[in-house]
């Protein structure tokens, strides 16, 4: 599916640019976008290094295991194939907590760590496991308590009540998280019953 989306994005861009008679924009964008991709990764190096270092201190101190034990009742339902108290669960909790607090920068290193741990449990390393799909779904639909960046934009634009959007944001993210996790569990059951039939 991603193959198709990727191809369509590029082809649509080239066709539209050609139609507008601005084909040279494609060449320019190709190189500048590639440059930008590398720059974002370079920016990520500092953050990744810092947070993965901190995470290792937390792991050795046993904090990740404590966290995983706390959310065990929920985790065994959402991630039935991940053993309870597995380090993946600790990293997932840290990632989701960072997302809830709107700390996007801290969320990425924790998320990458969670993926690495989930990959250790994955029987087919080139294919996403069920747990990975559930984690991605929870991550992208995650409840947001403090959309800090957009509140900043509203303050800068002179809003009378910059934080009035917090309530609606919590509602909308809560709804989408519940809905997507429900879809994910339905999908898992669907796959399971299909395997049983054939």
């Amino acid at each position, binding site marked *: 599916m991603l193959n198709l989306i990727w191809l369509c994005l590029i082809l649509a861009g080239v066709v539209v640019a050609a139609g507008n008679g601005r084909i040279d924009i494609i060449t320019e964008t190709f190189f500048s976008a590639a440059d930008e*991709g590398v720059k974002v990764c370079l920016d990520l190096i500092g953050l990744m290094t810092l947070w993965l270092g901190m995470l290792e201190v*937390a792991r050795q101190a046993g904090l990740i295991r404590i966290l995983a034990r706390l959310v065990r009742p929920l985790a065994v339902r959402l991630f039935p194939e991940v053993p309870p108290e597995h380090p993946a669960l600790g990293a997932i909790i840290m990632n989701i907590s960072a997302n809830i607090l709107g700390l996007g920068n801290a969320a990425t290193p924790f998320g990458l760590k969670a993926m690495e741990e989930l*990959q250790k449990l994955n029987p087919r390393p080139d294919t*996403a496991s069920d747990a990975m799909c559930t984690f991605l779904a929870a991550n*992208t639909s995650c409840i947001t308590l403090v959309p800090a960046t957009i509140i900043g934009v509203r303050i800068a634009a002179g809003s009378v009540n910059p934080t009035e959007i917090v309530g609606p944001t919590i509602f909308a993210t809560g709804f989408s998280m519940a809905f*997507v996790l429900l879809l994910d569990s339905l*999908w898992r059951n669907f796959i399971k019953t299909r395997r049983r039939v054939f």
Partner: protein
Amino acid sequence: MMQLLEAVSRWAIPFLLCLFLVLGWVRRVPVYEAFIKGAAEGFQTAVRIIPYLVAMFVAIKVFRESGAMDLFARIGAPFLGLLGIPPDILTLALMRPLSGSSALGIATEIIRTYGPDSFAGRLASVMQGTTDTTFFVLTVYFGSVGVRRYRHAVALGLLADLTGLIASLFICHLLFNP
């Protein structure tokens, strides 16, 4: 309530850093050495995702800069106009899963143009906080461990954005009726 939430987000990182270090020290973890051991992975992970990120950025920027995205938004705008949705909101909705910084730029433009307390401004604010840069997350997270077949994760991620959008629209219409 709001002050509490803002205080929590401001204190979260300093608190976490101290918690990790103090707890590590209490548990007799060699904190400095443990940090170095974990941090050593940071560089490799960041470098490993370069090809995935470059591929994504090229596709997104070509789509946007060529004017293809504006064209899509213009085709869809009349239908959304019937629901009372300003056309710029559609551009934001299309951009949001693709690129966080571009989406923030569009949201900022909408908030400036229509005013932060207008319906469009409020809707753009809620949408920005509700949805996520799904393609970035998919590419970077799966790319870092070498997963190439994403299965239903793409559909789930995009459905999460779509549900978030519809829920934002619903709640904004309910609370900030234009």
